[in-house]
């Protein structure tokens, strides 16, 4: 669920506030378009592991036992629509019994999004968690902006702490090999019914577990992610003032909308970032890969709609409805958010998860655009890889230690509505939260202290619950999700292993991203993408296709 921080938000100038994530639902706001184009590619990418072709017969995935949940205000669905709750139950059942830790230090690497939380002696929230877990939790926080440089350095220097949580969209190079070399095989503890010893971990779905499943073994515990990826937020007042239609049904209406809201004299523009993914989904470009009937894999870059989609994108940019600072704004989410809030951008292309950030300011009235095909009808909507992060324990044979690690994650993964989940989300009464009209309300201090980051590391399905945010937003999101479900499109390579992707994926991705950006900003004609795709193919794309096809055959 998602309680948007308000005043506390200003303290962290970093639009992506952890507090939004910590609530359970609103994971990693807007991470998806963080790095601009195609970033969604990073989120599933299979890099998080998957059965390597050489795998012996794999162990069964953990048995799924749906968590007991309170009655939702609006019910979700098995397809991925999230449950909506009006507020967090304060008297939820206990889901973890007995003592968890042994009083030892719990060093864990976590990627975070805001400023570091206050030190433990000034944080009743942290003290409470230490007491609950009977551990001395020591988070090693790596800010998201530093992760791509810091993590390889930690690996190269053999400085990883005992417990490591890796955000999967960060595309950590050679993660499967790293896991095998440095982390503990958890299969014995989690495979099949064994997971039932940790009931909250049993509440994590298969799609999540697949991210930590490699060479037929289970190496990591996932933090589940909603299936929805990115969307366009529309600023209702700006669009109304321009007398435009906020819900276009096809490309032409979309272009009309962009044109109508742009007013250069007043400094108002339709967009401030790259919407390449949105255009591709509108044009029906598949989610990274297509698996053909003969079992071969074809990249989405080779899809016939890719270049036309980019051509339209370039036209749109050329028509002047993008903010003049777009070349720099594309990589500056914080500033884009601010421009959207202040009405200088009429639309914001961002992650579904960032709804909490957008709704952070109660006065911001916005809507979410339902995707549409270029000629009307449905678009496609790319799904993610099922997990945001995967948490592992360094290689050990100490079964008691492994059991303790899993019990800690079992606590952290407690489902919405449980006592443990409430503690994780709200902390200490009177300090971190106050009860107003029977609803727990986080204090500014509580929001600050939540910046510990533990909620990122493990967990099952998320829910929408934002008693402190802009009213009606959860329902808005729920409705949107229901409309998008028929458009969901998986990446058939999401959980397959490719040696080439694993070792060269990021550089290849960067090449294509650079090529798309060049077309978007009008530096290169869209036709130039043919050469870029060819280069991508010879540089490793073709090999990836072959490897995925083999892996898929192997996996059956």
């Amino acid at each position, binding site marked *: 669920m998602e309680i948007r921080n308000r005043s506390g938000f200003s303290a962290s100038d970093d639009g992506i506030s952890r507090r939004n994530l910590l609530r359970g639902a609103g994971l990693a706001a807007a991470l998806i378009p963080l790095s*601009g184009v195609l970033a969604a590619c990073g989120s599933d990418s299979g890099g998080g592991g998957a059965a390597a072709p050489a795998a012996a017969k794999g162990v069964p995935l953990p048995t799924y036992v749906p968590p007991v949940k309170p009655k939702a205000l609006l019910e979700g669905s098995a397809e991925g629509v999230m449950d909506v709750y009006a507020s967090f139950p304060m008297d939820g059942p206990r889901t973890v019994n007995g003592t968890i830790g042994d009083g030892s230090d719990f060093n864990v690497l976590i990627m975070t999004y805001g400023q570091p939380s206050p030190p433990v002696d000034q944080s009743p929230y942290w003290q409470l968690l230490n007491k609950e877990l009977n551990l001395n939790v020591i988070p090693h926080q790596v800010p998201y902006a530093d992760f*791509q*440089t810091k993590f*390889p350095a930690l*690996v*190269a*220097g*053999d400085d990883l702490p005992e417990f490591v949580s890796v955000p999967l969209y960060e*595309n*950590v*190079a*050679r993660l499967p*090999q*790293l896991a095998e*070399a*440095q982390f503990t095989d958890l299969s014995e503890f989690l495979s099949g019914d064994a997971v039932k010893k940790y009931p909250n971990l049993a509440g994590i779905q298969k799609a999540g577990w697949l991210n930590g499943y490699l060479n037929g073994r289970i190496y990591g515990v996932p933090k589940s992610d909603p299936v929805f990826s990115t969307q366009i937020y529309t600023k209702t007042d700006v669009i109304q003032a321009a007398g435009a239609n906020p819900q276009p049904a096809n490309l032409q209406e979309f272009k009309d909308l962009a044109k109508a809201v742009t007013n*250069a*004299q007043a*400094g108002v523009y339709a967009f401030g970032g790259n919407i390449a993914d949105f255009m591709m989904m509108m044009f029906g470009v598949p989610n990274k890969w297509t698996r053909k009937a003969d079992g071969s894999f074809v990249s989405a870059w080779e899809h016939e709609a890719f270049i036309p989609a980019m051509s339209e994108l370039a036209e749109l940019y050329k028509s002047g409805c993008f*903010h*003049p*600072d*777009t*070349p*720099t704004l*594309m*990589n500056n989410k914080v500033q884009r958010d601010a421009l959207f809030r202040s009405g200088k951008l009429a639309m914001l292309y961002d992650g579904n998860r960032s709804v909490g950030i957008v709704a952070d300011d109660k006065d911001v009235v916005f809507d979410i655009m339902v995707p549409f095909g270029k000629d009307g009808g449905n678009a496609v909507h790319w799904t993610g890889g099922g997990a945001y992060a995967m948490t592992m324990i360094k290689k050990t044979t100490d079964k008691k230690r492994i059991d303790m690690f899993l019990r800690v994650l079992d606590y952290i993964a407690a489902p919405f509505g449980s006592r443990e989940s409430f503690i994780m989300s709200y902390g200490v009464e009177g300090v971190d939260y106050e009860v107003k009209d029977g609803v727990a309300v986080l204090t500014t201090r509580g929001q600050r202290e939540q910046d510990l980051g533990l909620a990122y590391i493990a967990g099952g399905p998320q829910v929408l619950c934002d008693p402190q945010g802009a009213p009606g937003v959860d329902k808005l999101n729920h409705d949107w999700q229901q409309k998008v479900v028929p458009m969901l499109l998986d990446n058939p390579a999401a959980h397959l292993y490719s040696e080439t992707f694993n*070792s*060269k*994926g*990021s*550089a290849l991705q*960067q*090449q294509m991203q*650079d090529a798309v*950006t*060049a077309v978007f*900003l009008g*530096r290169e004609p869209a036709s130039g993408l043919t050469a870029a795709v060819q280069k991508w193919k010879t540089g490793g794309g073709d090999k990836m296709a072959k490897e995925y096809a083999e892996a898929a055959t192997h996996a059956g």
Partner: protein
Amino acid sequence: MALKQALPRVTAEGSESQITPQKMPFLARLWRDAPLLVMVAPAAIVLLLFTYIPLLGSVVAWMDYVPFLGFTGSDWVGWDNFTALVSDPAFWSAVWNTLQITFLQLVLFFPVPILLAVLLNTVAVPMAKNFVQSVIYLPHFLSWVIIIALFQQVLGGAGVVNRFLITHGLTPFEVMSNPDTFKLLLTTQAIWKDAGWGTIIFLAAIAAIDPGLYESATMDGAGAWRRFWHITLPGMRPIIVLLLILRLGDSLTVGFEQILLQRDAVGPGSAEVLDTFVYYNGVVDGSWGTATAAGLIKGVVSLFLVLAANKIAHRFGEEGVYKR
């Protein structure tokens, strides 16, 4: 360079015996030089620990190095990393961009601190001089993120200048995201940030010039320009040459952070330099072997530049970094 020359003099003044340095017993020399050696020790240790020992790690340029497998567990791949690099057009594009930026910075940036120092030296009022010095030093202490944000706020598409142009119905200009002028923009930013800071050493060089020379020249009727040309400049020349050569040594390091922050706005075609290439193709991908190979190539080119510059300095009768 100066070491050999300086040593006999120190000996002549400092030693109590008449024995020439070569004939002094080793222990005696050690004892005599102990204070100097102690003084130089920290620097030597730092150099050893952080420069020479890590050099051994260069072997990963010939390996498919995987950190968690270590040196023994990673495969040797011969010259594969190098062939992969030199056959990659993106690498050559990065090399070319780097050289262009290096050249621009040498031609446009390097003289600025010298001129500033000379100008500052002509300011007679100490307070005014101190004030100007403080102001021009200041940007050096700002991080690149802030400098680029400042440039963006002023010259960006929606910056102060363009906002003014747009609201007055004029055509805005594009500086921050124009690939054609990006290298000039980089150099301008570097000048704005560091030119003031760079004056320090030149001011010191000017201060070391005997004021008597200026007095005599003035008496003989030399004007400001002649004094500059015949006294100030020759007085600064050894320092200028030394700094120029040293600058060449790391001139291929053209500003990683500054470029990384602006790379996407103009594209890799004009903004990919060796350092960012290594970052995207080596560090992020975990291809340490390729990254190291690129680093080695860069090191070799830098070495070549230093040697060549030194040679030219010798031709012109300068001492350069070391003596012939």
